[in-house]
């Protein structure tokens, strides 16, 4: 259950990628989470809702795609996508130690909003009036 620290890493990585873009806001974060990564999507979204506060990811929509597990099957001489977190070849049922996909956690891309030039807190004040 370390989704909170993963969420912090995501914010750090995104902020690092935007260090030369001080005026943009992030509206969407697209993630690819491996089935064997040990990450639970709802817990990660919950963590992100906290750690994005007062960052440029505040309010951004989180889109998570699951990356299935793929293994190299030696008897079949083929890369096979397995069933769930299994490392068994779905064709011949042989277990494989050669995991080719499904362990990673990637930030695929992010959507950035138009720079408004107006600080957010001023916009909020205007909205209330």
């Amino acid at each position, binding site marked *: 259950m*370390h989704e909170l620290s993963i969420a912090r890493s995501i914010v750090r990585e995104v902020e690092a990628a935007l260090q030369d873009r001080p005026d943009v806001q992030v509206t969407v974060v697209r993630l690819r989470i491996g089935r*064997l990564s040990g990450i639970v999507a709802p817990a990660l979204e919950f963590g992100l809702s906290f750690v994005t506060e007062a960052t440029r990811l505040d309010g951004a929509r989180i889109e998570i795609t699951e990356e299935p597990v793929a293994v190299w099957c030696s008897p079949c001489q083929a890369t096979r996508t397995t069933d769930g*977190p299994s*490392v068994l070849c779905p064709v011949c049922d042989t*277990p494989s130690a050669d995991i080719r996909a499904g362990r990673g956690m990637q930030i*695929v*891309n992010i959507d950035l909003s138009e720079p408004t030039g107006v600080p957010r807190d001023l916009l909020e004040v205007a909205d209330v009036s």
Partner: protein
Amino acid sequence: MCRDPEPGPAETLVLERNVLSANDARAGVLRERFQTAHTHVINVVSSPGSGKTSLLARLLGDLVGSGVRAAALVADCATDNDAVRLGACGAPVRQIVTDSQCHLEAGVIEDHLAAWSAEGLALRDIDVLVIENIGNLVCPAGFDLGEAERWVMLSVTEGEDKPLKYPAMFAGADLAVVTKVDLAGPCRFDRSTALAAIETVNPGVDIIETSAATGDGCDVLAARLRDAVLRLTEGRAASAAT
């Protein structure tokens, strides 16, 4: 008052960045430091209560007794009880108290090596460094600590199907250690089912069956580490000769 319609995305920025890239980079630096210092590092993971500390205390004692300069970093959410137990054999041991953190990261290892260094214990004075991770079969799986080997432990008091339930942890291990085999009878531990479960998620992985109480298998574990140290010592001699 009308709200402005939500603006569409100005642009999509492709990142394709590994979330754990910062940890991976630090672990890579650590791995180079360990290789340069000829220190063999193992990262020991298991569920809580699998008997990591008891077994490692015995193992450290064996190593120290045979002249191997062993040391340990031991992590827990609270207390320094395990450091006290592991340090009984005289090996240098530091407790890492993680509070609520459920796994170790490479940066934490860097900090504790620096603290050791400030106390006068350099990495080159350690032949075997045992890192006892937090008892947790999920979270530590994704965090490389720069180790040469990852050991996963499974006690006979747990279910034989634990490797199937936590495949990421068992699939990533270099060695599976079955612990508390002296309790296999009372626990009605089905040995062949457990070994088959390990084999299913990590085909061909080395498996060593042990008991900290009777000492079964401890000599095999100690020999494995002594062999690793011997290989590193030969490497050190070779690099000194060039």
